[in-house]
């Protein structure tokens, strides 16, 4: 086993996991909302971008942008639908509704795009790089750079802007935020739109690795759960670290044990951590 290669694989994998998880962690930390359609959002982000490239002939970057915008819209629409339930704090219902929406998206995507695997071609994948005895592609670099830049942006907005401060206020006490004149309804919509946009962006960068299918997204969901729970709910720095940690774990587990059971291994890790420390690793 080439250790340096595994480390590099782990880092790129981890950047991907962290990227997929950031929207979810903000949504959960702020609005205390669980989006069980997350996996389908990821799938749709990939398929929309693929569609605009393959069927409409758009270049990769433009198609990616379209996917991000459309998924942001979808997220906003979802939040508007959920508005009453959010106000009444009916968390179980919210979870089930997002699950139902995810299922609808699954059916709709298969109808629109067919159930066959599609090749989501990114020009960056062809650019291979060899360095010492490790190999990777520009796609991997794009994921890593993209994740780091995105995280830096999120961190800055969250901690140094008025909107970010308002979101943290809502996370602490949504009712009190209203007394402060903060329009919580709009910020919830923005948060959900952010979730849609960020997972779509992650999909555009990560999904080209393998052929895409309309029933995909479940592995990403597991990884997101692990990242969010391990990193501490709502913690941006925690999610980034957890993502890299998980990436390294998966890379080495896959190489040492078996790639087919890597997800099971990650889940087992999550269970152990939960049993030992239910609050996750970060202050949250």
């Amino acid at each position, binding site marked *: 086993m080439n250790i340096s290669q595994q480390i590099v694989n782990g880092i790129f994998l981890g950047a991907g996991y962290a990227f997929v998880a950031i929207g979810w962690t903000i949504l959960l930390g702020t609005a205390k909302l669980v989006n069980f359609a997350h996996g389908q959002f990821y799938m749709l982000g990939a398929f929309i971008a693929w569609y605009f490239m393959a069927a409409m002939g758009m270049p990769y970057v433009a198609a990616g942008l379209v996917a991000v915008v459309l998924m942001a819209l979808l997220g906003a629409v979802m939040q508007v639908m959920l508005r009453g339930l959010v106000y009444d704090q009916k968390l179980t219902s919210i979870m089930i509704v997002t699950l139902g929406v995810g299922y609808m998206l699954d059916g709709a995507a298969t109808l629109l795009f067919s159930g066959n695997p599609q090749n989501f071609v990114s020009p960056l994948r062809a650019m291979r790089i060899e360095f010492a005895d490790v190999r990777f592609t520009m796609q991997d670099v794009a994921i890593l750079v993209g994740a780091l830049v995105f995280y830096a942006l999120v961190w800055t907005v969250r901690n140094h802007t*008025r909107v970010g*401060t*308002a979101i*943290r*206020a809502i996370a*602490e*006490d949504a*009712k*009190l*935020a*209203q*007394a*402060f*004149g*903060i*329009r*919580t309804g709009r910020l919830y919509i923005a948060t959900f739109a952010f979730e849609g946009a960020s997972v779509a962006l992650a999909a555009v960068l990560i999904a080209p690795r393998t052929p895409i299918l309309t029933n995909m997204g479940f592995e990403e969901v597991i990884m997101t759960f692990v990242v969010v729970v391990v990193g501490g709910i709502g913690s941006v720095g925690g999610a980034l670290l957890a993502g890299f940690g998980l990436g390294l774990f998966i890379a080495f587990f896959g190489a040492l044990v078996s790639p087919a059971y890597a997800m099971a291994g990650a889940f087992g890790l999550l269970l152990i951590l939960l049993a030992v420390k239910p609050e996750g690793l970060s202050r949250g």
Partner: protein
Amino acid sequence: MSTVFSCRDVRVRYGASTAIEGVDLDLPKGRMIGVLGANGAGKSTLANACAGWSRGPARVTGSFRLDGTDITGLSASERARQGILLVPEGKNIFSTLTVEENILLVNRPRDTSGRFVFSTEQLYALFPRLAERRAHKGHQLSGGERQMLAIGCALLAGPKALLLDEPSIGLAPRLVVELLRSVRKLVDDGLAVLLVEQNAKAALEVVDRVMVLERGRVVMDGSAAEFVGNDKIAAAYLGGI
């Protein structure tokens, strides 16, 4: 005297029980009205209803007006933006945010007509301890400092009417006196304030009018002097102190 805020026939229900009923209120500019009553009489409920805010599932009926305009349909955050600022009882600032961040959150009105304008500098001048602690998080502040911050944030929002819900809770008596005197100065400068207080004695020193609630109904509504002069009621509320 122009009425800034008024409400008519306010009724608030939580589930099957009625918290307050048949309450009318007129709050003029430059005046402070004290809302007194025992625990559970409905004082906080009234203040919350005026602000359109509540922590629990309250059902509010009645009409509310701001400067003559009907605002009954406005949400809590909209009313706050329109100038009805509530400083709730208990948790009224964000503990995980710093003093500066709490202040940053405040929505500063662009149109300041009819509003009581207050700047951050004035706030720090009024409450110097907040200036010293500006980088500290809410949970690191003392009870008095939190109250100062809460009231300060409400003032920064340019209130037309300020609703204070039990500002004296958990504060040392000397601090209570200081705080209420600061508020009185603002009233003298034109601010309209509704003061909900359990500490009747302290409230009486600064209010113009008194409204007494008992089991959700108004049992007395008159000037502070009338309140003190009414032996029966005064004895009930001031007797033990």
